[in-house]
């Protein structure tokens, strides 16, 4: 990031520099930060994770309970929120209802139940049933269980069986105690001392890997690797991660990371004014999201290419929804067709996808500010503070009879020194994309018929328009570094702080050395010390 303008702006507005590199404040730069990995924590299973965990235990067919707690998002990622949140009363209710709904499906069919258990459930005290409870719990809790833990489940099943005069029901309620347990609902990480420092246990590592790459609990091979202690070494972890990356579920899961990274899950509720945009349809929002996800999958899994190509490629996928926005004729229906968009200076990469452009715009109008802010924040990992309280943020109105472009109005806004400091960082990037309306349709003139100007200057670089901006983004080292950082934060489910500094730098270096191959970023991450090691859990409460 070229900070050349920053001192000038500071002088102008008398504020501290608006933009800072995230996790890189001045004093940190001065002092070499010591390696201090995050503390281990409880990770509440996200919705897809808990569903996969249930499927892993019961197999298909399984009717998924519809009313599950919603995953909140923190810093863009449900993974980070899951490492912070608790289970509220209403959530506990939802888990309880869901658990019984699932168990009732299994127990309503004695043949299925007995197949799951491995023998007819005639008495909960029978060795076969007891063995099943132990193995079910081991799998559900993703670690070996203690004798004490199993015994208390046996006591519970016997008690309920007697009270209800129904042996199978005794078993059912014992399984409920397994599935409502914090050991199931959370990924529990405590860590252990190792030769080279405090680190995650093999079983914890197995779950870390499996949920990171597949959003699912460890499979038999991974469990075996944990049991043999193979996950204590970087090589052992890397071997398993390579294997999991070939699992088709890894596509879905890593694409989910990309969805969070680009915030495009929000496109499913695309909210635009229907009478302004004839291209709108009920499925346009999800289609926009899928297009971007397919670009990611193509880059990472088909081409195994340089991730920076995501900013410049004209290869994409369209269905009828997208074809209408792109103005491509002859594509009908919901099926996806790979296309190479024409080299006409109109489209290149994810920053010119309708999804990105629509998401960072308003219901009727574009928003250079939002588009620029997204790029600064999420692609450059820079930070923009919100407007200070007490400042009127309303844009000046156009004089009657003298229509102005949004850009002109924003330019005027930036003459206010209190606004300029930050808007100067956001708006110029967004101006490069002013040739796309609020749903991403290319245009030369705006809604008032005024010619749109998409030339701009970003951090001292003259930018001729959107393609230039996309190429600039692809060429900036900050962008590759930012993706690596965000993946690190998602994987570890915490923001990278001082103690992660070296780990992040190492990961970035790995990513660069691999010519920005995303799969290598994943392998670099799982072997990174910041991912494998932890700080001993603290008994002190610090905010």
């Amino acid at each position, binding site marked *: 990031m070229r900070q050349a303008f920053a001192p000038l702006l500071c002088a102008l507005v008398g504020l501290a520099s608006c933009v800072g590199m995230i*996790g890189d404040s001045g004093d940190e730069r001065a002092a070499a930060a010591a390696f201090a990995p995050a503390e281990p924590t409880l990770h509440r299973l996200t919705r897809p994770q808990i569903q996969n965990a249930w499927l892993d235990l019961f197999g298909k067919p399984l009717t998924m309970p519809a009313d599950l707690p919603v995953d*909140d998002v923190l810093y863009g990622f449900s993974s980070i929120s899951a490492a912070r949140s608790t289970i509220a009363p209403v959530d506990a209710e939802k888990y309880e209802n869901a658990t019984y709904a699932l168990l009732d499906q299994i127990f309503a069919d004695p043949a299925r139940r007995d197949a799951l258990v491995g023998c007819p459930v005639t008495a909960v005290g029978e060795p076969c049933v007891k063995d099943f409870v132990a193995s079910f719990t081991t799998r559900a809790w993703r670690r070996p269980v203690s004798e004490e833990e199993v015994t208390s489940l046996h006591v519970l099943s016997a008690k309920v069986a007697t009270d209800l005069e129904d042996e199978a029901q005794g078993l059912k309620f014992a399984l409920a105690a397994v599935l409502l347990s914090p050991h199931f609902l959370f990924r529990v990480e405590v860590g252990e001392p190792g030769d080279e420092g405090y680190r995650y246990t093999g079983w914890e590592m197995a779950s870390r890997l499996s949920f990171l790459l597949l959003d699912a609990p460890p499979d038999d091979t991974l469990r075996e690797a944990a049991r043999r202690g193979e996950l204590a070494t970087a090589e052992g972890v890397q071997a398993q991660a390579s294997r999991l990356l070939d699992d088709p579920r890894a596509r879905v899961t890593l694409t989910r990371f990309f969805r969070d990274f680009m915030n495009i899950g929000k496109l499913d509720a695309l909210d635009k004014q229907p009478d302004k945009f004839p291209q709108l349809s009920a499925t346009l929002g999800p289609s926009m999201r899928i297009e971007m996800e397919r670009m990611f999958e193509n880059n990472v899994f088909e081409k195994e290419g340089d991730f920076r190509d995501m900013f410049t490629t004209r290869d994409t996928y369209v269905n009828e929804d997208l074809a209408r926005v792109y103005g491509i004729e002859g594509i009908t229906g919901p099926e996806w067709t790979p296309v190479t968009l024409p080299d006409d200076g109109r489209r290149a990469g994810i920053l010119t996808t309708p999804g990105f452009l629509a998401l960072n715009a308003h219901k009727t109008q574009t928003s250079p500010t939002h588009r620029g802010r997204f790029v600064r924040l999420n692609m450059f990992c820079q930070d923009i503070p919100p407007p200070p309280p*007490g400042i009127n943020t309303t844009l000046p109105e156009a004089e009657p009879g003298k229509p102005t472009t949004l850009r002109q109005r924003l330019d005027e806004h930036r003459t206010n020194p209190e606004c300029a400091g930050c808007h100067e960082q956001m708006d110029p990037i967004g101006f490069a994309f002013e040739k796309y309306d609020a749903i991403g349709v290319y245009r030369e003139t705006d809604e008032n018929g005024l010619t749109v100007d998409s030339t701009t200057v970003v951090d001292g670089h003259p930018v001729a328009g959107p393609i230039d901006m996309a190429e600039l983004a692809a060429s900036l080292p900050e962008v590759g570094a930012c993706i690596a950082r965000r993946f690190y934060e998602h994987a570890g489910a915490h923001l990278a702080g001082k103690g992660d500094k070296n780990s992040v730098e190492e990961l970035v270096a790995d990513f660069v050395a691999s010519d920005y191959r995303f799969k290598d970023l994943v392998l670099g991450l799982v072997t990174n010390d910041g991912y494998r090691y932890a700080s001993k859990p603290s008994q002190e409460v610090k905010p």
Partner: protein
Amino acid sequence: MSARKIERPSRRLFLRGLLGGAAVAVGLPIFEMMLNGNGDAFADGEDIPTRFGLWFFGNGVHLPTWTPPTVGPDWTVPEDFGLAPLLPYKEYVSVISGLSVMTPRHPHHSGMSAVCSGGPHLKIDDVRDTIVSTMKYPSIDQVAAQYFQSLAPNPYKSLEVAVTRFRGTDEGTSFQHLSHNGSKSGETNVNPSEESPHAFFDRLFNKGAGSPQVDRARGSVLDAVSGQIKTLQGRLGAKDKQRLEQHLTSISEIESRLNLPIGECNKPDDPGVFPDLASNEQIAEKNKAVSDLVALALSCGLTRSFSIQYSTCGSGAVFWMVGATDGQHYMNHTEPAPYTKQKDAVRFTMGQLAYFLDRLKNTPDATGNLLDHSSIFVCTEHTEGWTHAQDDLPMLLCGKGGGRLRGNVHYRQEGGSASRALMTALRGAGLPLTEFGYEEAHTKERIAELETA
């Protein structure tokens, strides 16, 4: 529901509730606040339980068409003012104006925590400027809930429900949720609002009665889970211990419900779902469904404390019925003066509040109606959306609080602490507070003008 004699609470029970529950995050201040010098300042026994509600709407108002022109009893406003729809209910509504956020300010964040909890927001993590926060102290619906539970258990300690679809931003829990349990260390401890009237109906009224044996079995499972949580807590760091403390509380709430007779409720009709019509959210219809269900839940004693998140802090709900085409937050930053759409949106919103108050007023409760026996605090996180100003906060106190609240007063104090209003609202529900609020927002001044005695 028949009138239930509320016993004088035991200090031990209340203390246990605080220590055993989520409010442990609060520590003892609240407990201490509720005691006078003799340690016995709890409420006198009351015949009819007073309910407490928090009704929140996001993004502030349009101040010139909000504040009643005169101060004192018998407020009124011109017909085009935001408060006009409340005029038919004004005997039950007091307007509070002029109060300020006393804690360090930040757009939306500080106002939200100040008006809902009486404390500062807790910025979590120190590695980004773009602030992400949660509430450091519990929102007042939870303060009331904790107190009510110490008097006599209700089937639900509190109920949380939302009207407009969640459209907040990713700046932390207070942009997504209303009810908070407080956070000591940056864990995010919220009570999510149910956004679907259908799911809310299902949760409260559509339960098959379990046999005593099945209830016992469920209880045994919950006991086992509680045991697992406690054992696990012993191995965890402080932060995770805290998080599991809430899980434990949540489990015990379900468990306590197994042993409680659920009030006699006439099962209402399923309100169904409310899909958008021509991309327009059916806000009035959802508000009606939610209001009806909350009134019923209160009337049959399912809970004494509730929160209604009409819209989130910094909400992006689209008030299409007043001609808005963009989400309110954006609209507030772009609509030129005289802010006609915001003005109309606020007036519409007060019309929705009026529906809820009407429902309560028309629901008999012992000798009067539900509104007679409620204290409902209505607030928003700042004054006007285009400035994020946090002085002269728009606030309402609705209901007669079981005779504790006067109603129909416009009270104004320029620059006073917002916590004064929160404290008065809680006092209106019978909480014996003589001080309230935290850190810079702490106050010992109630608003006596709004109280009867």
